[in-house]
C-alpha cells in the first residue's frame, strides 16, 4: 500500500487560510489502511480546522467526503455535481489522488493534507514500513524476497557495505542491514551458495531515471 503521513496542522491551516468553503477529501484505499486519510482521519481534520477557525472568529464550512478511490476516473467524477460549491479541495489522498482530482477539475486548486511517503506494509498495528521502491525490474527472486533496492540504504546489489555492524545499518542502529537480512535468508533456505553470484550493474532505466512511467494494455482499452 501507499503509506503517507499527515502534514503538520500548522502547515495545513496556513494553506486553507484564504478559504471559507472547503471540500475535504479522503480515500478509502491505502491511506485508510495506514490511518492517515480515511473517513475517520477526514472527520478529525475537519473538526480540528473547524475548531481553529471558529476560535479565530472566521468560521469555515467543510464538506467531508471519502471517495472509494481517488486514482480512478469513475470515482473522481462523482465530485462533479458539487465540487464547484467549494472554494478549494483539501485532499488526504496520496500524491496520485491529489494530482488526479486536480487534473479532472482544472478550475479547482487541490491542496495536499498529507505527505506521501512510501510503498510499504503494516508490520504491526500502528507500524508501517517500506518494502518497495517501484524500480520496475524486480530482483526478489535473486535475494529470496528481500529487496536490496529498498532495504539497503545504498541500494547495493552486492552487499553488505563496510557500514554494516552487528546486523545493523550505519544510517541508523535501529535499521536492520538489508544485506544481513538477505544473507540470513540464504542461510535459512540452505542456499548460501547464491550469495557468491555477483550481480551485474542494474539497468535503472525502468526506474525513475527514465522519467514518469506508464503501462498500457491495448486489449483493455475501450
Amino acid at each position, binding site marked *: 500500500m501507499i503509506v503517507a503521513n499527515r502534514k503538520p*496542522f*500548522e502547515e495545513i491551516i496556513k494553506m486553507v487560510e484564504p478559504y471559507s468553503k472547503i471540500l475535504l477529501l479522503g480515500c478509502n484505499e491505502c491511506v485508510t489502511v495506514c490511518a492517515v486519510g480515511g473517513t*475517520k482521519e477526514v*472527520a*478529525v481534520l*475537519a*473538526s*480540528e*480546522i*473547524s*475548531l*481553529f477557525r*471558529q*476560535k*479565530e*472568529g472566521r*468560521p*469555515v*464550512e*467543510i*464538506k467531508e467526503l471519502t471517495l472509494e478511490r481517488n486514482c480512478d476516473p469513475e470515482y473522481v467524477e462523482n465530485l462533479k455535481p458539487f465540487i464547484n460549491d467549494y472554494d478549494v479541495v483539501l485532499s488526504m489522498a496520496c500524491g496520485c489522488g491529489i494530482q488526479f482530482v486536480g487534473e479532472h477539475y482544472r478550475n479547482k486548486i487541490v491542496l495536499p493534507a498529507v505527505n506521501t511517503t512510501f510503498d510499504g506494509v503494516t508490520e504491526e498495528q500502528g507500524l508501517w514500513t517500506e518494502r518497495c521502491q517501484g524500480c520496475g525490474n524486480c530482483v526478489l527472486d535473486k535475494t529470496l524476497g528481500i529487496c536490496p533496492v529498498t532495504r539497503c540504504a545504498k541500494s547495493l546489489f552486492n552487499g553488505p557495505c563496510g557500514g554494516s555492524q552487528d546486523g545493523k545499518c550505519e544510517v541508523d542502529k535501529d535499521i536492520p542491514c538489508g544485506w544481513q537480512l538477505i544473507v540470513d535468508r540464504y542461510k535459512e533456505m540452505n542456499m548460501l551458495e547464491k550469495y557468491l553470484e555477483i550481480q551485474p550493474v542494474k539497468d535503472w532505466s525502468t526506474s525513475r531515471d527514465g522519467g514518469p512511467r506508464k503501462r498500457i494494455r491495448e486489449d483493455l482499452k475501450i
Partner: protein
Amino acid sequence: MRLSYPANVKIVKVPCTGRVDIIHILKAFENGADGVCLVGCLEGDCHFLTGNLRARKRVEYTKKLLDESGIGGERVTMYNMSAAEGQRFAEVAREMTEKIRALGPNPAKRQGSGNRGQGLVKS
C-alpha cells in the same frame, strides 16, 4: 450515598472507555463543551483487557490535536476508578469543573452567543 457533583457535568455512557474515539472528544468541543473528562476502570481491571489503556493513548493524542487547534490539550483529561468509587467520582467531577472553570470557556464557542452546539458551521 446521595453524593452530589456539579450540575453542569453531562454524562455520556459508553460500554467501555475503549469505545471512545478521538472524533467523539473533538465533536464535544465542536458542540461547545468546555472540557472533556474520560472516566475509565482501573488500569489492569478492564473487562475487555485493554480498553482503558487504549482510551488513555487516544486522550494523549487528542491533547496534541487540541493544542494544535488552539483549544488547549489541558481541557481533556482521563481518570481511572472502580465502579464502587462513587465518592471519588464526585470528587473528580468537582476537580475537573474547577479546573475548566479556571481555564475559561471553550475558545471555539461563538463569542457572546452562549449557545451550545451552535458555534460551528459544518455540513
